[in-house]
């Protein structure tokens, strides 16, 4: 299945801003992180279609996944 993956802040370094990625049906969000070589402990915010999610979530075709390191501001 095809997903759109968006990376932000330091996660863009050595990777990409936005890419369509092919994954097996029923893949978990955690498996996508491994695929991207992003360590779970470095992740601040995980969004699937704008909703907060976690590495146990099952992904669906056409999902937009946004991954941020820990960020803050005001």
């Amino acid at each position, binding site marked *: 299945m095809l997903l759109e993956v968006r990376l932000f*802040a330091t996660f863009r370094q050595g990777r990409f801003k936005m890419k369509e990625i092919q994954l097996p049906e029923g893949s978990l969000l955690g498996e996508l992180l491994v695929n991207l070589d992003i360590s779970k402990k470095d992740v601040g915010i995980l969004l699937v279609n704008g*909703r907060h999610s976690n590495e146990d979530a099952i992904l669906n075709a056409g999902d937009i996944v*946004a991954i941020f390191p*820990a960020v803050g*501001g005001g």
Partner: protein
Amino acid sequence: MKLTNYDFFGDFRMAGYCGTILRVNLSTSEIKKEELDPDLAKKFVGGRGLGTYFIAKEVDPKADALSEANKLIFATGPLTGSKAPTGGRYMVVTKSPLSGTIASSNSGGFFGAELKKAGYDLVIFEGKSAKPCYLSIKDDAVELCDATEYWGMKVSEATDMLTEASGDSKSRVSIIGPAGEKLSLIASIMNEKYRAAGRSGVGAVMGSKNLKAVVVRGTGSVESADEEKTKAVIKDVLAKIKENAVTSTGLPTYGTAILVNVINETGIYPTRNFQECYTTKADQVSGETLAEKYLVKNTACYGCPIACGRHCRVDGVEGEGPEYETLWAYSTDCGVYDLPAVIKANNLCNDYGLDTISAGATIACAMELVEKGLIKAVELGGTPLEFGSSEAIVEWTRKMGEGEGLGAKMAEGSYRFAESYGAAELSMSVKKLELPAYDPRGVQGYGLNCATTNRGGCHVRGYLIAPEILGLPEGIDRSSTEGKSVWVKGFQDLTAVIDSLGMCLFTSFAIGASEYTDLFNSIVGESWTSDQLMQAGERIWNIERQFNLDAGIEPCEDKLPKRILEEAIPEGPSKGQKSKLGELLGQYYADRGWTEDGIPTPEKLAELELA
């Protein structure tokens, strides 16, 4: 010269504080030094709390904020100028001419620390000077000086000239620009040129008193009660700041601007005056793009290990910022995706002394008024004012700063401006203070905070975005209402504490109430529990509320703009979400120990020793 608390008044027994209030009557030119009552210091901590206490005590809540009856207080906290990490903050406290509420406007940089080192906890300005003046403070030498030659000057130039005139390049300057002089209700007070006491029109109060600046040089130091204990506590706090990814990496690398993509991806990024909540163009005006294209270096305030400041250069002009709020107000809120134009607008705000949130949001409101045909082309004097115009965001900022043409009306803020066209509901504000860069419909706790914050539509006073979006200190469901009002009260009370201590709110990404208590205890020489410190925060919240009620700001003003309350988010990742304020407000009043009409009860006031 090392100042101790005993230099002026031998009885003062708390370290951290100087023990001295400087009182300046601008009408009579009288300058007095008064002792800070230690019991007051304990009750209201400092900064926001202590400043609010004095405004509530000495200013008629119904007074005209731009009249001589109002007072303007520069208030440091006990930790300002100390060795506490980020101990550089001060508050400007007054009655707001924009919202009619109590106002406390926070700023960083170096001015606050310098004021403490000169030996003063607070400076209280009263009355009005007959001619433009500025206050010069050099340790215990304090005098009012003629500011006629500086009146009309922009912030940057006047700061340089006043620093030079002081004869000491290490002097620090807190100053208004032309906007404050012309009494713009959204005028800020600036220090170190780029740090802003931004909100609530505090710059207009300063301008109404013919006070151009405060120039300070302090050679003392802020002593700790227990140097050994303080060292140990600071070591622990610094370690936590270093260990935390937000304070050690995120903020220094991208600044607050990093939030652009976060808030947009969650679909709560207000677009075109809150008509939409998502844009495909966010990355063009994001923190990542800012860092990549225009950032020269990051900068830090006094005693700060985080260093989130942005020093940028565009077209050869350098300045600091833009921060996230500024980026949003001038880009997406105005439908503009031209980052250089946004940076230029930011620089103009700093130089004229305008609140970037209110200025950008007022232009956005004006753009919607144009879109709906309420403002006629003839009023624009040939300057475009439509969504998406780069020229508009730069030129209308300049006009607001100069008080030129329609810009003079806009400089009164979006509420009065929209109201003059019979469309007050198009001002996205609460209690006439423009809402910041998050759509409350998508974050229920944050929405409750906006409706109830004492100075009006403000994000920092109860930054529920941290748990509801950023997952800090833990993630909570942004759409739920369960237990939400308790979270809001907790954040609001803790923020009042941090604002009164004189530290930066960004430390709260890494530390909590117990660390703030340890810092307070070791520096000031007390043995408070964190419950006592949090109670002080609650006390401060309640005196602010009481001032507002006495000023005629009724509980029915605890609400959100009509569009936010009645319409759902139209599209994007948070499509369909609606405000649940109605479900939360009653519970919030109950959690605060107020009546169901939102009035602090006698029991609550007695509990807080405010009866």
